[in-house]
């Protein structure tokens, strides 16, 4: 993760630039790595093959392994069997809201923990770290009861609101802010009469936009792919997320994979397109998280 350094007041992270290991690369290194590329990509390719062929071509012996011309037939069935467009829209609303909200709320809290002095700061931050380890998935039954009391069952806000902030996001943004934003800059801003909010909004937030973007991406992907909680709390098809829509396709045609595969493929395309543009950032983000985790 690199943060652009527009002027002198911004210190780059004091990261030790180690010279990378650079030995001779053997042919079998490439063999193994290309094999892993094939393993990573093949299931998606297979998804595409099945969703472009009719079921006869896929179930012959040996099965076909090349795409056919049946894509639009199956895609049309997907869109008519379940409200797929609505599901895509719902998923965009849910994942998008969570991503934007996490970017703002986690940067804000990370800023407070990294750069502000207040009573109870360190104990509160330790609580944040502990909550990262709490597997809240196991508390779905009471969570369902809460949603029931709020009368949020079968609504999208039941999916959005619990995910609006995350302990990991706060931890992540705090790490970035404490390396990127230096104290002299903050004092200079204070002397100039900046309020804490102005320091956050005008100085801190722009500095960590890139890290915040990666956090938003990870939150988006996680929310887009979430399954257990939507399965519990969403009931009517018009509120389905794409994952629930795929499951609905599967339930009706279990033996014939074509329809479910077509739905899976259509639900994965938006993320694949996103990934083409931001994949490098995500790779850097995952690797950077490891540094700090």
């Amino acid at each position, binding site marked *: 993760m690199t943060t652009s350094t527009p002027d002198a007041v911004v210190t780059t992270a004091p990261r030790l630039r180690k010279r990378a290991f650079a030995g001779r690369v053997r042919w079998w290194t490439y063999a193994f790595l290309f094999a892993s590329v094939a393993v990573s990509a093949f299931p998606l390719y297979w998804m595409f093959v099945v969703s472009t062929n009719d079921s006869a071509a896929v179930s012959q012996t040996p099965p076909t392994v090349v795409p056919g011309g049946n894509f639009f037939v199956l895609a049309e069935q997907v869109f008519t069997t379940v409200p797929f467009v609505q599901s895509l829209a719902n998923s965009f609303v849910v994942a998008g809201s969570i991503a934007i909200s996490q970017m703002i709320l986690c940067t804000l809290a990370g800023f407070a923990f990294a750069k502000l002095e207040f009573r109870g700061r360190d104990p509160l931050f330790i609580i944040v770290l502990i909550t990262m380890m709490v597997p809240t998935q*196991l508390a779905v039954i009471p969570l369902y009861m809460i949603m029931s009391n709020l009368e949020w069952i079968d609504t999208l806000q039941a999916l959005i609101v619990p995910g609006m902030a995350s302990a990991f996001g706060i931890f992540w943004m705090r790490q970035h802010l404490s390396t990127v934003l230096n104290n002299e800059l903050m004092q200079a801003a204070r002397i100039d009469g900046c309020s804490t909010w102005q320091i956050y909004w005008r100085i801190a937030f722009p500095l960590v936009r890139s890290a915040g973007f990666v956090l938003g991406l990870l939150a988006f992907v996680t929310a887009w792919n979430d399954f257990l909680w939507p399965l519990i709390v969403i009931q009517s098809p018009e509120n389905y997320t794409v994952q629930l829509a795929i499951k609905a396709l599967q339930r009706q045609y279990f033996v014939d994979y074509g329809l479910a595969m077509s739905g899976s493929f259509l639900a994965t395309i938006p993320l694949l397109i996103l990934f083409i543009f931001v994949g490098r950032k995500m790779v850097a983000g995952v690797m950077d998280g490891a540094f700090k985790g």
Partner: protein
Amino acid sequence: MVLSAPPRSTPAPQSTKSAKSTALKPRRRIKSASRVDAFAPYMYIAPFFALFAVFGLFPTVFTFYVALFDWNPIGGQTFIGLDNFVTLYGDERFWNAMRNTFSIWILSTVPQLLLALFLAQLLNNARLKFANLFRMTMLVPYITSVVATTIVFASLFGRDYGLINSFLNFFGVESIDFAANTFASHIMVSTMVLWRWFGYNTLIYLAALQAIPKDIYEAAAIDGAGGFKQFFYVTIPSLRPVIIFTIIVSTIGGLQVFTEPLLLSAPGLTGGSGRQFQTLSLFMYEQGFGNFQFGYGSAIGVTLFALIVVFSVINYLLSRRITSDD
């Protein structure tokens, strides 16, 4: 200048702070702004704590409470003490789910982390070509949803027309009914978990490998250590904290495997006709939302929670011992 003292040294009581800013710029707006400033940090962290209290902490604590009841969402609640736990620990379905969960966890985690370590070692070379291609494609499974993953792999592992069985047939091996056989079904589920996460862990290991200073390797080489010795005496010890981190993350994930067995057992919730691949999370879902036994389901949740806490504590103790050793 009065305000230029480093904020770290003194927590500056708010009265003096506002007095000073009034002295500098005697305007009402500034005065109120600095009063707001004293509360600002709390306001910035409040959203997270409020959300966590309502949707994280409260449900978690409440699970323990619900577990003490015979709790039916439509009927009513009767306090039954620890009866749910007594029933649960005498329930063969629970121990079956426990065995399946651990079997799937080991079958997915061990090969996954070894593979990731191996691939990271291969990727850790500045002269490697296509480095970005390798890293990016390895992350593609991670952005693919578990639902899509399960559907593709269910087709690949299919009994009659699955590609894997076609492959086996080609070599004269008879088709395997993966979903029907206990061990084969665990392999199938583990493969799905492994596929989705090996690239992610590879990148984590790669980042850790890149953080090892090159001098250590040079020193080891001067001392006559070859590639394998360097790997076991330099690489592995340097990676130990990261390895433990990935093990605990995989454990927390592995104990919560849910989507794969659910979709494979559709339209049922039992994880196969003989419950051969029902995991603890799926068992909890079956009891809670299939049979509407909220109390019994919560008792399963509490048990899973306890398991995860035990594993996390073991991990913490291990990692602390290792860091103090170094």
